């Protein structure tokens, strides 16, 4: 609650928070199917209809309502983004904490594996995962998740190493606190701030990566909509039906703007450095 209030007290946090909230609302409506039209119903007599009262954002090649698809697409894209980032956060946190806490050989092993993943071209990694597992929502989630895992591992490991050297961890050792208690209470709890910031930024990246995968035909499967798929499907209709590119394009842009603003605000709100009072 305190953090929410702080975000709303923060200029860009307020804007970012509002954007993300609106998107979340649209995503939920889209996922629940509460859209103006059914996003996959094809009104084939109204194909490639320009925006109008009936179709606020026009219709696509199949006569499907773009506004409805946009809502469903936001739902889909956010699902992929959230779950893939959740995957990466979870895996990265566990691996990063393990590397930092166990140290020595384990640190070496985990970080070398992460090096392998990092050195492996990211888009290629996603591509291979998708081709092996076949395209689909959950494959995209896993693919994007694995690509970002090394980044989260690094984000966690660095601060975890410095937390490990902090005096309150020393203090915990003098009481004989168990490793699991120290790792969860003293390390993990203090990693929440850097992780939260990283998560909002990663969400933005994940949206873009999903768009890139869709551009290469490896993302969401038709007739489901995702922002990236709508955008990439529109590319050869850019001249015939520009609204097909404009709306999803703007939707991606504004959502990423929202995540970035929110991330900036979180960084300010959670960072003790900026909370420090003037001496």
């Amino acid at each position: 609650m305190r953090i929410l209030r702080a975000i709303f007290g923060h200029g860009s946090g307020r804007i970012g928070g509002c954007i993300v909230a609106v998107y979340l609302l649209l995503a939920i409506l889209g996922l629940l199917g509460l859209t103006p039209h059914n996003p996959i119903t094809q009104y084939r007599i109204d194909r490639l209809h320009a925006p109008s009262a009936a179709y606020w954002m026009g219709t696509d090649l199949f006569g499907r309502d773009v506004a409805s698809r946009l809502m469903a697409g936001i739902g889909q894209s956010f699902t992929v983004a959230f779950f893939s980032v959740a995957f990466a956060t979870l895996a990265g946190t566990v691996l990063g904490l393990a590397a930092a806490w166990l140290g020595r050989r384990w640190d070496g092993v985990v970080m070398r594996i992460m090096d392998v993943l990092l050195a492996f071209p990211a888009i290629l990694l996603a591509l291979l995962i998708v081709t092996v597992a076949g395209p689909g929502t959950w494959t995209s989630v896993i693919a994007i998740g694995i690509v970002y895992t090394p980044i989260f591992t690094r984000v966690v490991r660095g601060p975890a190493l410095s937390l490990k050297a902090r005096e309150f961890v020393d203090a915990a050792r003098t009481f004989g606190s168990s490793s699991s208690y120290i790792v969860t209470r003293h390390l993990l709890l203090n990693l929440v701030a850097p992780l939260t910031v990283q998560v909002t930024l990663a969400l933005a990246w994940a949206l873009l990566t999903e768009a890139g995968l869709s551009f290469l035909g490896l993302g969401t499967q038709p007739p489901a909509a995702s922002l990236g798929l709508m955008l990439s499907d529109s590319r050869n209709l850019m001249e015939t039906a520009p609204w097909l590119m404009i709306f999803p394009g703007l939707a991606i842009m504004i959502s990423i703007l929202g995540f970035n603003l929110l991330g900036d605000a979180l960084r300010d709100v959670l960072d003790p450095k900026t909370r420090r009072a003037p001496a």
Partner: protein
Amino acid sequence: MIPLLSVSGLRVGFGRDPRANEVVRGISFDLADGETLAIVGESGSGKSVTALSINRLIDFSGGRITGGSMKLKRADGSLFDLTKASEPQMTGIRGAEIGMIFQEPMTSLNPVLTIGAQIEESFRLHRGLTGRQATSAAKDALDRVRIPDAARRLKYTPNQLSGGMLQRVMIAIALACNPRLLIADEPTTALDVTVQAQIMALLGELKRETGMSVIFITHDIGLVAGIADKVMVMQNGQAVEQGELNQLLDRPGHPYTRHLLRDVPHFANGRATRADGKRDENAGMNPALKVDGLVVRFPLKSNVFSRATGAVHAVDGIDFDLMPGETLAIVGESGSGKSTTAKAVLGLVRSTRGSFSIETNSAARSARPVQMVFQNPYASLNPRLTIESILAEPVIATGGRVDAGTKAAMASLLERVGLPANSLQRYPHEFSGGQRQRLCIARALMLNPSVVVLDEAVSALDVSVQAKVLELLVDLQREFGLAYLFISHDMAVVERIAHRIAVIYAGQIVEIGKAASVLSQPRHSYTKKLIAAVPTIDRRRERFELDTRQMPSLVRPQGFEPAPARWEAFGEDHMVRVEG
């Protein structure tokens, strides 16, 4: 005669509405040519803000001058109001007419530039020197602050020099263009006591050489006794008292000044040691902690493939015992191995050799009879846990459950250390530094320890808070029969709490014995030097000797063993390691 600087009614505020948020509220003083003014106060008193306002650096920290004037007599004799100066005017004055040195030499020098470049910059800015001229001027500046081998050191980057050296470099920079006013903002607080003495001596000499005026900001009223002409005491943004040095020290008018002089620990050469807890009272009891031949070494490897080629001998054969209810202070400077000793006793670093025996003198004592209180109360409490969770941790760690009994114990401990009863649901950041250190003490006591290791436990606190925490520690010791291993570099604090003192130098104890005896009659040359460096109110205008000796390297070749120590006894309970 017109003073060099005449400040009147200075007010400084922060934030969006500086007037509503004033930190300095109407300060006035005059500073004559060649005079030294000491501004004394605790944190939050507004002393640093006052200093930063004079050369208007406060503008860059979000501060705003909301009232008053600061008239500076310029070189040509004209008066100039610094409060009305524009930024370009100020860049001409800073460095040229007003020099400044800061508290943290380690962070106050640009880490990526050589110190030569940083000194030359001053000459370039105000003297227009370039190239070889600037370099040679920089070398002279280093010579002037008594840095040996100046030509070579010009090419060093700050990380290659010790804190004391860096503070000399800072002084060289500040004085490069012979400013007529030097502002020194706690310039020695971050330094070891012997290094502090060196810096103070240097400042004294330079002041005599150049005849500049100095504004010296400090929290340590003992330190200014050696240097100031006038003293201004600040509290809550106001000057509560100002006057000539001797008058202020001898006949303080304001209660706060009296408090600073009387209640705060000042070093008294062994005259202020504790009278209780004589060793012989405990005769026949087992020591609470006995340390035998403690050795801690960190192997050095030149690369991953090779075996260790040497070792850092951080602690090299330390023995002592500690009786219940007794305080043994381990004193020494940074890098001497005193903290490593403490950590080894707690098992936080692995000892290479040596044994501990820990005696518990009551059947009810816990499985963890040794507890620790750390130096930094800000770092030793997890900021994301409530006080209740923090106090519960030792109980959970030793397999206990947090039940009503535990909660009652927490409440009574909190009350005992002087914290409000509603603290349990709050977070560490809601407490002041002193309160946090009380929390740490309470946490350490949760497990009913017999020995508490206090690692610089009061060093980070304000002086008046220090005094209160020390009182609390003494009370607790009496009440619970605790044995304290008190690790500190601060002689004044040690004097107030220690029964016995062990002086540690380069990983070895060089002198150990009864506090009064060690402090009043130091026998070992290092102890003598250490004690001589401690500033006291008694020694006014005393000249410190300049001495650039440094601690010997602790790196030894593989397999090196120090020669066995020989000890000489002076009276009962005072042993000195034989030198040479």
